[in-house]
């Protein structure tokens, strides 16, 4: 197994985290979270991949045909669906925040310090 997917995944995770740390806009921050999340499926797919294997669709192939691991693909699907829920929720909270506080900058809402 090559190290490249893991390096890319690590890079995406940290770039996303950098975005979250420095973000001045909740919408921007939410998208940075999805970049972090994409690191999980890069890792998952790389783990399940076999050289020269076909997609795990078992209709009409012989039993000896090598396929990639279908489990990780199921995990990735779950992962994608879950992340959409989180994004939708965060964006709706952001919109509410804008109606109440007239800003979407995390640094301008200082209600909870101390």
């Amino acid at each position, binding site marked *: 197994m090559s190290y490249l997917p893991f390096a890319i995944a690590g890079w995406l995770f940290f770039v996303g985290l950098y975005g*979250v740390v420095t973000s001045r806009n909740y919408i921007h921050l939410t998208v940075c979270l999805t970049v972090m999340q994409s690191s999980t499926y890069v*890792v998952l797919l790389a783990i399940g991949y076999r050289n020269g294997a076909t997609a795990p669709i078992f209709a009409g192939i012989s039993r000896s045909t090598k396929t990639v691991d279908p489990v990780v693909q199921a995990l990735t699907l779950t992962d994608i669906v879950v992340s959409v829920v989180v994004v939708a929720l965060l964006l709706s909270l952001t919109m*509410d925040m804008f109606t109440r506080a007239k800003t979407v900058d995390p640094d301008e*809402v200082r209600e909870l310090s101390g």
Partner: protein
Amino acid sequence: MTTLVPLTVAVPLVAAAAIAAFGRLSPAWIDNLAATAVAATVTVLATILLVASAHQDTIHWFSGWTPRHSVAIGIAFTVDPIGAGLAALAGALMTAAFIFSWGYFEEVAHLYYTMMLIFLGALAGFALTGDLFNLFVFFELMSVSAYALTGYRISQPGVLQGAINFAVTNTIGAYMVALGIALVYGRTGALNMAQAGEALAGKRVDGLVIAALVLLTVGFLIKAGAVPFHFWLSDAYAVAPAPVGVLLTGIMSDLGLHAIARVYWDVFSGATVGHAGAVRGLLVGVGLLTALVGGVMSLLQSDLKRLLAFVTISHGGIFLVGIGLLEARGLAGASLYVVADGALKGAFFLAVAVAVIRLGSSDELRLHGRGKHRRYLGLGLLFAVCGLGLAALPPFGPFLSKSLIEEAARSAGYGFAVPLVTLATVLTGAAVLRATGRIFLGLGPRREPLLSAQPDEPEKGEPEAEKSRRTRIVLLLPAVALLVIGLGVSLAPGIAALAVQEAARFQDRAGYANEVLRGQLPPLPPLVPHVYAAADWAWGAVSVAGSLGLAALLLLRGRLRLFSRRGRFGLVRRPAGVLTAWHTGAIGDYAAWICAGAAAFSVVWGVLLR
């Protein structure tokens, strides 16, 4: 018996769907009655499972996909008494929360019940599952429903910010957990915890295993609110509506810690067996730091909900010490502590909500002396008993649990942890007792420069008018019931010995794997009757006396002319100021802390575990 296992999760989820579909048609009281009944059912089911799993785990393979040739193919729920006990606690807290919301919200949409029941199903599933990816899914499910519930009845930017901080930090945690699970799967080809543990056992610990361990531990520590990942917790719990807060403070954080114990013992312990000292040192160190930081911060709050949030953080640190000692007595103590303390914190959260309704604020300073009337005697007693319980009053629940953890610490060579854990209970107990004294006895000054007050927020969405007498009883009843559970858990005969026995079974990785994959029962660990040591009583007395003394000192220092000179006071104020200044409420700072904490974990374990 095994058919009961999926029901514990399925019943609340199906009921949630039903209420979402038909709730609009039925009056609100029917929704509430149904939801309460479902929560009570979950409690009963989990309690039955708790009893049934006393000597062997109750294992349910979905759709009958049992292991073939000791290889797990399907997805399993493996129920041990500790997991079942946590599910039962979740059910009990949810029941109390529903009974409370009967008199609390004037009018709640049926979606509130839907989300609460999804939350309950996720909590139960998280406690019972034996599969790593299942763990992740329930982690996300409980997180998402909790974010939505925290922002429920949104009325101020503070609430929204708390919910957003909660959502962002916990989502980062969830991604770490997902990455950790992916790495475990990549190495072992298994998602079943027993199977993954078998594959890792006896193998060399390399970078990939360490990375997986760090990612999973940090991910769950974010959920558990350990320092330095705790910042979101004080924001979110301080703004959550009362019935939701009961669940958050009473069970959700502690489930994060349970997951660490679960994953460590079932998956990694076979590989890291030669380096247990490094795991123990780091977990106990983080636990102690969390316990003390949380304790000091709870003493610096004037908002009661936020105060309780820091109590949750602090006591979570104590649980982490118990789990991190990697000893049966420590785990037994932590598990009992979670139940006793969870019920107590839930009761206190409800008591605070009642104070908001009847006295008009959740701010300690604003409530100064407002409870000084015979009418509020019951509420005041509730506050005081919660405070004493949090200070580990002998011989009740928290005292027994704390003693077990301290005995484990002494026998593991971590004797220095005992006074530190006691200091944490002194601080948290004193915080609650000080608030009690100020509100119900009118002691102490009205202004307190040391306390960080929250901005004045009118508590919208909560009933303002004084309720009728009948409703008042409904409001207090669940809190009293939780208090009885929390304090009385230690009085069940032989509970300590049983807990230690079950904890030893929990920590037997090979036995667990044999049971799950091959159906072979491991021999039962011996049942040793628990006897309190003299030191346990001594530290218990120190904790209670210290709490009362510290609370009295803080309230009466003006009268005693202590700290009255500016210079001496500055000695306390400056470090306190530094500590509070770190809690900025800005999500960017929190994410940076997460990054720093994760880096520290990687360095320590990367060096020591090889």
